[in-house]
């Protein structure tokens, strides 16, 4: 982890339907720096604006006030430069494309040659441990496998930043834990910065270097919790340090609820 900032969010407000009857203040006065190579989770009750914050970083939404910088440039420029890959809750693969062609989609849009694309998609399939599934169609794969393809697609053009919006939310518990280990391995192998939206306390505790707890209506940063579990394995889940981190996050979330 370097000391350079990957993301700098300064004084950001986000208001939907401004000056209308159904105006919603989604985020208010958000300040947050995320370092290069860091794994940061955004957690909070529903309606706290965690997905909105992720979309502001990805320039899929624009802030009403304040600024979002990604790798020292505006979020908009970072999107144009393809500095990040995105993973959604539902894998969002294109049914009509084979798995390999799905992974190659961003490369195709960036004008890569066919042979380069094929080489890279195979590398990515190896990375997410689905080496023999390139020729399958998404619907032939399980939910967990689809989500791994989705991660491979997001990483195919080697972005320095990975934005993940509850990527494991639709998976069963066992698959989910397995995917978390896989994600940590990929994070370590690629050195990518990860911003990870979740509403699972154990997931945030297990994966993150830092957990940002948001409070709802309007969304604000309630607290930022540092977590250091070192090298994580399946046995980490039974380690007191893991429970300690989870407890700390849980207490912060309770405090958020009591505020309301």
């Amino acid at each position, binding site marked *: 982890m370097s000391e350079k900032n990957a993301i700098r969010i300064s004084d950001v407000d986000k208001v939907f339907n401004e000056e209308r009857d159904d105006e919603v203040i989604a985020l208010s006065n958000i300040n947050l720096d995320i370092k290069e190579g860091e794994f940061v989770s955004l957690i909070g009750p529903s309606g706290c604006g965690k997905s909105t914050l992720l979309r502001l970083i990805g320039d*899929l939404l624009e802030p009403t006030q304040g600024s979002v910088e990604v790798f020292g440039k505006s979020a908009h420029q970072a*999107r*144009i430069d393809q500095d990040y*890959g995105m993973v959604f*809750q539902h894998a*969002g693969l*294109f*049914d*009509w494309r084979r798995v390999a062609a799905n992974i190659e989609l961003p490369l195709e849009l960036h004008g890569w040659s066919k042979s380069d694309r094929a080489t890279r998609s195979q590398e990515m399939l190896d990375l997410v441990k689905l080496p023999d599934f390139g020729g399958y*169609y998404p619907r032939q794969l399980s939910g967990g496998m689809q989500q791994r393809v989705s991660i491979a697609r997001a990483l195919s053009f080697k972005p320095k930043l990975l934005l993940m919006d509850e990527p494991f939310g639709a998976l069963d518990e066992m698959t989910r834990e397995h995917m978390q280990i896989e994600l940590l391995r990929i994070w370590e192998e690629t050195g990518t910065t990860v911003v990870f939206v979740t509403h699972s306390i154990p997931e945030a505790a297990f994966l993150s270097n830092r957990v940002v707890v948001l409070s709802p209506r309007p969304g604000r940063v309630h607290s930022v919790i540092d977590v250091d579990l070192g090298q994580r394995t399946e046995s980490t889940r039974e380690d007191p340090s893991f429970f300690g981190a989870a407890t700390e996050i849980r207490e912060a979330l309770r405090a958020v609820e009591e505020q309301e």
Partner: protein
Amino acid sequence: MKSSKVTRVFFTVSFVIFFLVLLWEGYKWMGQQTDDLWPGTNFGLPIATNDTIMPHFVDVVGELTAEIRDGRSSMPMYAFLLKKAWFTFQEAAIGFILGLTIGMGLAVFMSRWKVSERGLLPWINVSQTIPLIALAPVVVTWGRNQGLPDLFSISLISTYLTFFPVAVSGLRGLQSPDAAHVELMHSYAASWRTTLFKLRLPAARPYLFPALKLAGSLSVVGAIVGEISIGRKTGLGRAILEYALRYAIFPERLYASVIGAAFLGLSVFGMINLAERFFMRRTREVVS
């Protein structure tokens, strides 16, 4: 398609035809026994069963092979109908292609600008409430004024019917991708055009092909109605009109020409099915 599937389709179709013929002849036989009354009652049958109203199936089929005069030459009925159907098919095909182009153009335009959807869609719906019979002479007169061949005017009438299902279902299909898919393309900084070709058009296919099948049948209907109202001597519509006028003398001929029209409609339907198989071959593999 596997050969076993071909045989299965062949037997299914044969069976259905056999069943319908049996129903036709059985009803006719029953009516002949009871003087067109329901057996054991005094209630009349809905359709009279004499040879003018319901000719025997074999007579209709026989009529298809009978020699008839076409101008100075003479040829079997089926060849005559095929010749007529070929003209109608050309008109319908031009109408279909124009309708597809205009319909998809409108769908793309409306999906691009929400305002245009609100402005155009009501008019597209209204367009279909105008009876074709009223519209056809207008199109023909206008076409002749512009010096367009009648074939093209008939195609335009056919276009008028075909563009509608394409525009409406096309729009539905182009709007069908999830928000997440659209966001994904946005995150790749993909242009509107790229999103159209890589996401929206492929996603629209399952919506589009049922509409195309409907449009295909409508294109034939439009061409036949166009021929009838224009008085063009060449097509199937003209043949149907002539045989309808001489129904009392040659009822079998009208039935034969209707079979010809049905055959043309089915052929168009089959062609669109083949196109669907080709364009959706990838998704098909998974399902079947």
